[in-house]
Every structure is written in structure tokens, then in C-alpha cells.
């Protein structure tokens, strides 16, 4: 069916960096023809977090069916593709290698270019999928399981990291506290859910702002304060309200993220803030920022929750912009587990 539409750009996006095997087919950077996500969350749950070797094994089993399903749902074949985009880092090396190896073989056999995608960049590009008219310069707050970055984004592929976490990432802190509270993995959505029944003012956990003017983050002190509070209550034989703890902790995390984002906006005078990464799905964060930024005439943009956590659609979206620049990867492309944004 694509014969008559040769000018169309069709990207197959593949993501296997952590515990989601995902593939998506994207037409012209906007039109998502299919999106398949096979999550391993239930497999890892009994271990309390992602086990790298098990994640790799799961990817190996699900990779091919997931890609095939994405093509089938899009009613396309490999021959209709303009390019195949795949995450090559950062992430778990064994997991990345399944996607990279498979994508390379597919691109080579199909005779289409291969595009290597930085997972962090893709989280940010998730915003371009649903918002056609984003104008540079942009500011991005990337808050995920492994990263908390404030980024000045001045043109496609051009990033300046203004600040980043010095210890735990926001998602990591949420996951750790959730585990201690017995809420299970992944912790962010659990905390959000149970916090609805709690009082966000019940506990006053420290909000580390670091040196005046710093755009860096620190969440480990806040996390330790929660753990200490729980410990000393247990020593006294008291039980604390889990919803209150969750609500107060979520509030503290959001307060820090919001204050730093406002500071970055003030310093850069950028008029649009993009949210990206799994924690960008958090309702309190979105609502608080929405409210604060509206007061300042700054536009807030965030992806639908499904495009916040790891997914193939964001890889295809980032892939589309690389495709337009002719930015292709060699057959020697390797997984780079510690890949940075810049």
C-alpha cells in the first residue's frame, strides 16, 4: 500500500533498554500506526526490581514477536520501512544488545538505514509525537528511573545540561521509598495511587535546594529522612500512616522538581517547558507545573502517560528527526550502557 506514497517516511522504532520490549511504526513523525509494549514488570516484581539477566532473557523471547506484531498492526512489511531506529544506550547492556543486534540484522536484510537512538533523547522527543508546533529554544525536565536532568534544548540534537542529580534520580528515590513502604515495584505509580488517600502536609521531609542558583538535584537526603522516620517510629512501636508518608514524600519530590524548573525558566527565559521520562507521568507534578507556569505565561508540554515510560513510539519519533538529517548508524553500532545525553 505504500507504493503510491514514496515520499512518506516510515520508521520502525525499537526499545529494549530496560524492562520493556517495545516496537512502534511511525509515519511522517506524527502518525503512530502501531505501538506494542511487552512489559516485564510482573516477572521482576518478585525480586523487588529489575534483574538484568532475567530482563535480557525476556527480551530475547519477546523481541521478534513484538516487532512482527507492530508491523502487522500497521499493515506494513519491512519493505515499506524508510529506516529502523533502535535504542543503543543508556540502559542494561544485555538488554540493549538484544534490540541492537536484532535491529541491525533487520535493517541489513531489509536494505534500509539503521538509526542509533539515545534513550534519553527519545524520552524528550516523546513530546514531539503529540505536539506538532514546538518552537525552539525549549527547556526539558527529564525525570526518569535513572536520570533527573534540566536541559536547554536549542535545536534538534543540540542539548546543554543545565543541572542533574548528584545522587539518586527522582524515579529511583520514589521506587526505593515505595519498596520500603511495601508498595511494590515500580514505585512511582504506587506512591501516586496511595498518596491520594494521604495528607501531603503530615510530614515535612527536607527539600534539598543545594547552593543558591544551582540547577542540580539531590534526593538521597529526602529519601533517608523518610527511611529514618519509619525506623524511629518502628523503634517506638508506632505505626505511621502509609498514605500520609507517600503523600508527603511525593509532595517533597514534586516541590524540588518544580522549584528547580522555575529557576531554570527564570535564568534561560525559555517559554516552553517539556516534561519527559517516567516520572513525567506523575499527576501532581503535571498539575503543579501547569498551574505555576500558567501564572508566568510559560507553556508546559508533556507526553501522554504511555509515552512517558519506556516505549517504542518515542524511539521512532527521535528516529524520524535523525532520518531527516540523514544521521545513520554504521553496522558496527554497539550498545553503550553508560551513554550520556551529550
Amino acid at each position: 500500500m505504500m507504493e503510491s506514497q514514496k515520499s512518506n517516511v516510515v520508521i520502525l522504532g525499537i526499545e529494549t533498554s530496560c524492562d520493556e520490549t517495545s516496537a512502534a511504526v511511525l509515519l511522517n513523525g506524527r502518525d503512530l500506526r502501531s505501538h506494542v509494549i511487552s512489559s516485564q514488570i510482573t516477572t521482576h516484581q518478585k525480586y523487588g526490581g529489575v534483574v538484568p539477566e532475567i530482563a535480557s532473557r525476556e527480551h530475547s523471547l519477546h523481541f521478534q514477536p513484538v516487532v512482527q506484531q507492530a508491523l502487522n498492526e500497521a499493515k506494513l512489511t519491512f519493505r515499506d520501512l524508510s529506516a529502523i531506529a533502535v535504542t543503543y544506550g543508556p540502559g542494561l547492556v544485555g538488554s540493549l544488545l538484544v534490540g541492537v543486534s536484532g535491529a541491525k540484522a533487520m535493517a541489513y536484510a531489509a536494505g534500509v538505514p539503521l538509526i542509533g537512538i539515545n534513550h534519553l533523547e527519545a524520552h524528550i522527543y516523546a513530546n514531539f509525537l503529540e505536539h506538532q508546533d514546538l518552537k525552539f529554544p525549549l527547556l526539558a525536565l527529564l525525570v526518569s528511573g535513572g536520570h533527573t536532568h534540566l536541559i536547554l534544548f536549542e535545536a534538534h540534537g543540540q542539548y546543554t545540561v543545565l543541572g542533574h542529580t548528584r545522587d539518586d534520580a527522582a524515579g529511583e528515590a520514589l521506587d526505593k521509598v515505595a519498596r520500603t513502604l511495601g508498595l511494590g515495584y515500580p514505585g512511582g505509580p504506587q506512591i501516586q495511587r496511595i498518596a491520594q488517600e494521604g495528607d501531603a502536609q503530615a510530614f515535612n521531609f527536607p527539600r534539598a535546594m543545594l547552593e543558591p542558583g544551582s540547577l542540580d538535584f539531590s534526593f538521597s537526603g529526602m529519601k533517608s529522612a523518610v527511611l529514618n522516620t519509619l525506623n524511629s517510629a518502628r523503634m517506638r512501636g508506632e505505626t505511621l500512616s502509609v498514605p500520609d508518608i507517600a503523600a508527603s514524600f511525593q509532595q517533597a519530590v514534586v516541590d524540588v522538581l518544580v522549584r528547580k524548573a522555575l529557576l531554570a525558566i527564570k535564568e534561560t527565559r525559555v517559554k516552553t517547558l517539556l516534561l519527559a521520562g517516567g516520572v513525567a507521568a506523575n499527576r501532581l507534578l503535571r498539575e503543579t507545573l501547569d498551574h505555576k507556569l500558567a501564572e508566568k505565561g510559560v507553556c508546559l508540554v508533556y507526553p501522554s502517560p504511555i509515552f512517558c515510560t519506556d516505549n517504542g513510539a518515542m524511539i521512532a519519533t527521535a528516529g524520524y528527526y535523525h532520518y531527516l538529517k540523514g544521521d545513520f548508524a554504521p553496522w558496527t553500532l554497539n550498545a553503550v550502557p553508560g551513554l550520556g545525553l551529550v
Partner: protein
Amino acid sequence: MKYLTIDTTTKVTAVALGEDRRLVGEGFLNTTKTHSERIIPMLDQLLTAADWTLQELDMIGVVRGPGSFTGIRIGIATAQGLAQVLKLPLIAVVSLDALAWAGKGRVEDIVPILDARKNEWYTARYNWTRGAEKADCLTPPQAMPIGKWLEYLKGLDRSICFVGDAVEKAKGRIEEVLGERAVILPEYISLPRGAYAVSAVWQRWQETGEGEQVEPYYIRFSEAEVNWAKKEEARRSEGHE
């Protein structure tokens, strides 16, 4: 029938082209680069040099383990990706079965040994009957403590030819235990080769005649699974007391 084979179950990247039972071309790299960096460029060079195109292929063969977990997955993902796009049947063989071909024509038992870390080998035992189409498997693939396996082999009172990536390091120890009855081949015969994969894949194709759903063959569970099972076991036995 034209096909290509991939073996990335050890540090060696071995790719080969086969036509029926004949080895047509072979790539072997034992360097420090990763499989991921080497494999497609090697395949591409081999096809070009042989004047073959991907479109001429009728089948893809892959070695599915045991061996390096990551290597197994790279080989399978690559083979599956090629087979999926080219719509070709996929055939998978066991690394130790393939290595048995290194000893084709020999009278000794053939014992492939692959480094499994933790003082163990992935191993099995084969014997070639004169004129046979394939080696008989006398001891099936398993992960074995090195000392225990050598003692077992010593007790068999037979001559044994060792092949595989663990041979080079263990030569001395093998000869210490088995003395004259140990046969050690040169490394270029002993390491996984495309030629062996071609023979094993062709043999398997003769048996099955169709493609198959390929899954990695790890032998071992992941450490997390083992530890979890241990904990469960402990929990359950506590409950019984």
C-alpha cells in the same frame, strides 16, 4: 540449498556460508572486539567475497548455546532478524553438538568443553562411529564442575579428545588427570568454527526439513532465579518444622 550460519556463543565470532553439505565460505574472528561490532560487517564481507546475495539464501542457521549468555542472545537476535525479513526458515543447533564435528573421523570420545565460569564447563560427550552421519551423544549437555567431570572421564577408561574454548587454559590440568588418554588438538581446530556450524546445521536440516521456533539454550538458570528458589526452599522447609 544455500544458507548462512552464525555462532557467537564464545568469544569467537564465527559466520559461514554453506551449500547443502558443503562449506562455501567462513569467517572467524578471535579478537577483543565485541560480536555486536563484528557480526554484520563479517557477514557482509563474506557474502560479497563469495559473490552471494542475501536474496539467494534458503535458510539461516544459528548456534543457540550453551555458552556466553549475551553471545547466545546476540546470535539468535541476529539470525531471527535476518530470517524474519528474508522470510526464511531458521534452524538452531547446540554449541556442543556443533563442536563434536571438530573431531569427525576420530576414534576417541569427543568432549567439547566451554568456559562456564565458576569453575565449571558446559560439556557433553560424543563418539563418531565409522561412516556415521552424525556423532552419537553419550553424555548429554550439562554444566559440570571441572574436577568432578575430569574424575568421571578418568573412570571411563577411554581415550578422550578435548575441543572447545576451555581447552587452552585447562590443558595442563586435563593431562594431569587423564595422562596419555587425553588428546588435545590445536586451537584452530578446537575453537568454534563456521565449518562446524555448517555441518551441524545441515545435519539438523536433514532431520527436520523445516524451520523452527528458536529459543536460547542456557542450561543454567540466572543467579537471581537460583537464589530465589533457594530462599523459597528454605521458607518452605521452615514452615514444615
